[in-house]
């Protein structure tokens, strides 16, 4: 019997989160080798993992098809889903920042900002009182200033290496980002004992760090 369903983002965060779970003492299969599998079971803990696109994790959790999810704060800020944000896992630490070509200012007539995070970018410039046009892109955001599509980009920065390699510099830090443990509001109540035990075990490991 599966007791908990956990939605995990595929890719780098998955590796780090899975490592954290193993170190917290959860009895999980050593290796999740078959990378094409979308559902992986951990019978020892009666847990199943759903492997999802990072942007989709909060959707699964909001609708309750996953009880728990691991999601970046960037995704949570962008989507405003109705989920409980209970733990900061302190993994995949990075931040969202504005960047652009060195020594440039915003175009006076048509200031443009390219981003994967239209909502975060809109709120940031709204708070500053600057009117800009937000251009939503799905990847390779760094291209935009280089080819003249936008004056600034709003994107995730972890080491700054990607910016550097593309001749961009960081201008303003917007918000720090890390991975969070999110929980569906109904699961949190209906499966409260199981979920609180799960969180307590994770917290225990996090406090050691």
């Amino acid at each position, binding site marked *: 019997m599966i007791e908990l369903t956990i939605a995990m983002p595929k890719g780098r965060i998955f590796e780090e989160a899975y490592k954290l779970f193993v170190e917290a003492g959860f009895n999980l299969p050593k290796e999740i080798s078959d990378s094409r599998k979308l559902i992986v079971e951990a019978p020892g803990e009666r847990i199943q993992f759903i492997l999802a696109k990072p942007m989709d994790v909060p959707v699964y959790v*909001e*609708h*309750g*098809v996953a009880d728990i999810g691991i999601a970046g704060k960037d995704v949570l800020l962008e989507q405003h889903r*109705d989920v*409980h*944000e*209970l*733990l*900061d896992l302190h993994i995949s630490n990075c931040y969202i920042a504005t960047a652009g070509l060195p020594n440039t200012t915003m175009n006076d007539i048509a200031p443009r900002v390219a981003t994967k995070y239209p909502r975060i970018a809109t709120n940031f410039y709204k708070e500053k009182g600057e009117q800009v046009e937000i251009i939503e892109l799905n990847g390779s955001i760094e291209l935009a200033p280089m080819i003249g599509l936008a004056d600034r980009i709003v994107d995730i920065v972890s080491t700054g290496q990607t910016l550097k390699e593309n001749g961009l510099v960081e201008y303003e830090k917007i918000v720090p980002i890390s991975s*969070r443990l999110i929980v*569906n*509001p*109904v699961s*949190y*109540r*209906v499966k*409260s004992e199981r979920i*609180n035990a799960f969180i307590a075990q994770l917290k225990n490991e996090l406090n050691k760090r």
Partner: protein
Amino acid sequence: MSKIQMFEKPLGMRDSFPEVNEQKEYIRSTARDFIRRKGYDFIKTPSVEYFETIGKASAIDESSLFKLVDNQGEMLVLRPDMTTPIARIAASKLLKEKNPLRLAYYADVFRAQQREGGRPAEFEQLGLELIGDFSPYADSEIIYTSIELLKDLGVESFRITIGHAEILTAFLTNNTENKEQVETLRQLLVEKNLVGFSQKLESMNLLKEKKERLNKIIDYTIDSNVFSDFRQFLNDDQQYLIDQIVELQELLEFQLNDISIVSFDFSLASHMSYYTGMLFEIHAAGSGFSIGNGGRYDELFKQFDEKVGATGFGIRVDRLLEVLPKVAVEEKHTLLLFDKGSFSKANVLAEARRNVSEYVTLQYAESVNDIEAFKQIFDEVIIVSEGGSVRD
């Protein structure tokens, strides 16, 4: 905004097809019988109200209101909840005739949706209001009735989480410097953003011990069900709040066979800002969303210049449908097909069958395009002709 398509409906509006409609009707009639036996009277209010009165008094955020303008230029709203209109009627008229007053409703409410067109913007709500009683007996009656109602309707697995708006406010106020900080922290608890809560707390200009105490309270509410543990966080004037919740728990223990479906969480906060005393949420396995909530809202009556105690709950019927096991309706539908000569005979036969509570459709055969497909829909088909009736 793209061009409106032929079959498109406004954002969040839904048709209820016959099958779903029957399920809703089952809920409505079952709930109605149950609730009336508890001494509550059903009431209806207008779909449209003034923005100035109901719109502003309602706890629903203004951005979710459907607004329209009448021919006098007054701003109107489609009612976003039933509690506020009922408070208006109670304050203006009904409380003078009966006090305490027990009212119930089953009605459509309207809340505009910002995201994902599929989410309903109009949905049926089923609820109770007990007005004119400050006592914990009223609170336990409301919680107990909501539990019994869900059981009566056939909801199998659900949990009630009870909090207390004033206790939470006391915790926050005792450990912060101003109202703004209280509101910021409360809002984070409404979203149950515990990460945001401790981060915000860290960034606030507060004594270290206050920060530590608040973090401790949040941990406590999740781990502990022992109310006396919380007395240390309240000052002498606030101790009565714990007495209230202890009394409520005792009453519920007396009424319920199984107290395990009820749990207490003092960090529970609601987006409904008018709750003043106990408040609760109902979660059921089968829906990812809360199916209902309720609480004590004495504060709302101040808007109508009344000082009375009021407590109540509302359940969303659309969410209820999701968690209810499908009720198979045992009904036999019969089709009587007649032609020109057999009309009167078919009529007599149809009435005879309807009198014994059968469901009978009477149809002129010539008008049906695809007679075979049409016949398939019914449990029994009888072709009535001048010579005699033949079962098909």
